[in-house]
């Protein structure tokens, strides 16, 4: 009996260690440890053995069973790992296929993005943002901005008028909000006004609709020198720390003195020449690029809001108007104003 137990242990042990699949292992478990297995039968028959044999046979059979169980467990672990490996390998993918597309990210329009950049610079300089109507009263667009009825200055901007109301027009600049802002808030006032404006003009450099950002600063003691400093800060923030600005006297009806403002060319560094010696195309060899119009708010304009605390003898300040498209064209090399309103997605998607 003992020999038989030893035989079973050796034979089954060898078979278990040689098993190559978990199915085979299961079969071996049933065959050697199952209900009908020889070893099980031996163990079940121990009680019927003579008393002196029971201990020896029982010990041997139980020992064999435990050993086989341990072997089965070890082999199962071995086989599980290799079978999983095989299974994972079979589950291989072609890693060179393209990734699954996520929801695409949209793009900010260059006008909106540029507007926001300028707003942020001015907010940093202590300004708040005012917006206002695009269809405006003649009073705000012209009269209160010192463009009297019949004055040639009104001809500077070709204006769209509304059919139903002769005194109502599409604002030609964001400047009407100067008046609305001053009517709403007494000095000191520091506001910028971004928004759409309209002029009756259409070619590669003129669009009947475009965007401006107006700046208005009124308080005691604000000077033309302060205007220069503010615009220098703005231009440097937008076009780079190396930039300079220069103020050229000009004429606008609602500022006095009035200036046009040039920024030193950021392509040629203001020399007007490129590295190869040829003329800079951006500034046309001038070294300067005209960027905006500005000036000290005309006392006549303050006169229209005198009852709101704007006494021209006590407070003064500056205003400026910046073309957003112009800034975007210069910064990003957009050649034609009309591209901004064409909204070709192939262009939109160039600007993240």
């Amino acid at each position, binding site marked *: 009996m003992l020999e038989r137990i030893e035989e079973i242990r050796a034979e089954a042990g060898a078979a278990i260690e040689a098993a190559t699949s978990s199915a085979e292992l299961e079969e071996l478990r049933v065959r050697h440890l199952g209900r009908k297995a020889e070893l099980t039968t031996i163990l079940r028959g121990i009680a019927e053995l003579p008393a002196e044999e029971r201990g020896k046979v029982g010990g041997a059979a139980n020992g064999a069973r435990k050993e086989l169980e341990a072997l089965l467990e070890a082999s199962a672990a071995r086989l599980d790992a290799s079978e999983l490996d095989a299974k994972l390998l079979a589950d291989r993918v072609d890693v060179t296929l393209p990734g699954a597309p996520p929801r695409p990210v949209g793009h*900010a329009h260059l006008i909106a993005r540029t507007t926001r950049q300028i707003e942020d610079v001015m907010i940093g300089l202590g300004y708040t943002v*005012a917006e206002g109507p695009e269809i405006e009263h003649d009073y705000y667009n012209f009269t209160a901005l010192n463009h009297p009825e019949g004055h040639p200055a009104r001809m500077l901007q070709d204006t769209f008028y*509304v059919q*139903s109301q002769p005194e109502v027009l599409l604002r030609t600049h964001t400047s009407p909000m100067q008046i609305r802002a001053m009517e709403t808030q007494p000095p000191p*006032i520091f506001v910028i006004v971004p928004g759409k404006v309209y002029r009756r003009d259409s070619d590669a450099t003129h669009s009947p609709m475009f965007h401006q950002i107006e700046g208005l600063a009124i308080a005691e003691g604000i000077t033309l020198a302060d205007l220069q400093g503010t615009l220098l800060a703005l231009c440097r923030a937008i076009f780079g720390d190396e930039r300079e600005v220069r103020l050229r006297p000009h*004429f606008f009806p609602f500022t006095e003195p009035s200036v046009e403002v040039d920024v030193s060319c950021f392509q040629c560094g203001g020399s007007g020449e490129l590295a190869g010696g040829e003329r800079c195309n951006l500034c046309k060899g001038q070294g300067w690029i005209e960027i905006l119009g500005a000036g000290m708010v005309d006392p006549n304009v303050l006169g229209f809001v005198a009852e709101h605390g704007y006494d021209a003898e006590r407070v003064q300040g500056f205003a400026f108007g910046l073309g957003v498209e112009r800034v975007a064209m210069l910064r990003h090399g957009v050649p034609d104003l009309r591209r901004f309103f064409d909204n070709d997605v192939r262009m939109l998607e160039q600007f993240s």
Partner: protein
Amino acid sequence: MRVPYSWLREYCDPGMAPEQLADRLVMTGTEVERVTVAGPPQPDNFVVGKVLAAEQHPDADRLRVCTVDDGDGERTIVCGAPNVAAGQTVAVALPGARMPGGEKLRKAKLRGVASEGMILAADELEVGEDHDGILVLDEALAAGTPLAEVLPLAEPVLEIEVTPNRVDCFGVHGVAREVHAITGAPLGPDPWALEVPAEGEGTADDYASVAVEVPELCPRFTARVFTEVEIGPSPLWLQARLAAAGQRPINNVVDITNYVMLLTAQPLHAFDLDKVPSGALTVRAAAAGEKMTTLDGVERELDAETVLVCDENGPTGIAGVMGGQVSEVSATTTRVLLEVANWNGTNILRTSRLLGLRSEASSRFEKQLHPDLCLRAQEIASQLLLELCGAKLVAGTIDVAAASWAAPRQLVLRAARVKGLLGMTISQAEQTTYLERLGFGVEADGEDLKVTVPPDRHYDVTREVDLIEEVARVHGIDEHLPTTLPAVAGRVGGLSREQRLRRRAEDGLRDLGFDQVVGWSFTDPGEPGRLRIPADDPRANPVLLANPLSEEQSAMRTTVLGSLLDVAARNVARGADRLALFEAASVYLNHPPTGRNRDVEARNRPVGALAGNFQGERAAPFTEPHRYAALALGPLIPRSWRGGGEPADFFALKGVLESLARQLGAELEFAPGEQPFLHPGRSAAVSIEGAPIGWIGEIHPLVCREWDLDAAVGFEIDAAPLLGAASAGIETYEDVTTFPAVYQDLAVVIPDEVAASDVRAAVLAAGGELLRSAEVFDLYAGEQVGEGRVSLALGLEFRAPDRTLTDAEVNELREAIKQSLEKIGGTLRE
């Protein structure tokens, strides 16, 4: 304004190259657009020649073969001019000369005869108009004399864009004064300081009379009479100057009027006195509908505000704008009535706009000239008429003045104000120098100055601040202005909450995959029709422009959808197969900002700096709601090898809109709702707290067809109520961690006509405060639930802020929910 450099230098020679002067002018406020050259670009190879012989060309009837002495020797030149003849002194271009326009003259063979140069006509040198014959020069000139010593060749011309305030710079002398001011170069004596002898018979009153019926529109009318006038071409120097200034030479009298206008900015008009019956002129307003033919040969209809200069037979000219043909100076004229008048600028501007007629004269008059200028112009013109036309001036000037006009303006320029406004110091001596050079009278008064404004600047310089500008620009802003920042304490910059939310919304839509576009505010009036919007819908009644650039841009848009469809159609035509577009912008509704919209604004937008709300005193003329609108075509997520690529449908866009609202912390409500441009079964009205704020849906196939699109889906909502309901940024903390929530799912079978939102509302109502959320996560329709019914699955979250909920509490709520659902025909699936 074209200013020939030699003419300018006659009054003030800055002693520098024209380009250098242009730079100085630009930096002191005179816009020089460019410096060009009138005539040949270089004077080289242009000489005086003598025609020694002129023979008929053997093979061409109209050509002559000339032998010309050019000073160095004889050369053969073939010439086509009929008037060329031996013995003439002529202008010759030698091979190598650059002709106007830059072309280089070469030796040529003309019908077999070699020609070594060209005998020139006036127009070929751009010194005059004449092309009928060659230019015949003074025979005293020696052959070989450089032509530039005889005629202005390669004349630099400053092209100045005069700002509307500087009417004085519409005259060469005004520009000369400006050059004097900014360079300090001496200014010559006033060109009108003349003593012109009156040798004609009698006095002007014997020949002519003037009556002014509208003195408020004609502050001054002066006239002089000239006899024995010989009409002919002007001398070459005058023609050359006019040509360089951009004026066509006509005859000596007309040329003189143009010349004096270009010099002084004061327009003049010459009448043939013999064509003015009795020499009587009347200045009156036109009768409405009155017609006259102007010098350009056009018959024009006038209105009652137009001012006419009339003779006994009717109108001879539109005052200040254009003369008539009746009394035009012609070759037969011998007596001239020279009108120099002053008109009301506003009226001239009005008339010239009304008639669509802008002339050199009107563009000066409209900026308001000073009446003093009339006699200056008379004086200079008189001198020239005597000199160049052999005329005799009749004594006396007819001078009809409305009244005495304003005395010279007196202003005070305070030193403190100069420094205070500019932020730079300009000494009293410097201020005085600059103003005196500009023609102002200056007298010191302590630190301040008492300033008298000259007539040329009377309407331009009216206040102290105008003087400050004058001294600042002449002093040199570019060179001297310090760079400072406003030193104003206590100001805080920033965006209002609404402005921050707007940025958040735009960023949100962008992050959801939508490209931002900027559409036209204009559209064509037919767009509402293409959107199937019925004629009685307010959106079909847009704000129309009185003077649009085109019919396509004649109405203000009432929807953003139209713009988005336009953009989509353009992109699809260029090959785009998927588009996700959004626009954040205004529409324009044809009514004033009243009613709900205004209330919403008032409620949500406090007034003041950091609120970003600067309404002003007068309400906007129209309502301009700011909107968010999106349009998607094709898949939101592109097709790939793993599949996908289903075109965006109602629910795809609804997910986007809900996500946008969630980012802002607002909750939207959706209910079936129709729009004429939407699929009637796949569109919803969007509202907040029961108030409608817009729509979402698949675009109606007939609308898609109008834009050549296969299918599209979109939404358009008002920003103000959305942002007004947003909690982003102002949320309050809620304890969700101390006591655990109970999560349960619930399935209800319900008739399919009951809206999911009603099911959800019933669940939420029954669940009360303890039911924190109920979201539909599954929908089933089929055999198991039976015909006409659907099964909805909802995920529920129960939570109490102050305790852990017991099973009994939750079961009680669940029972309430069950009963609530039964009321709307639902049964719980357990």
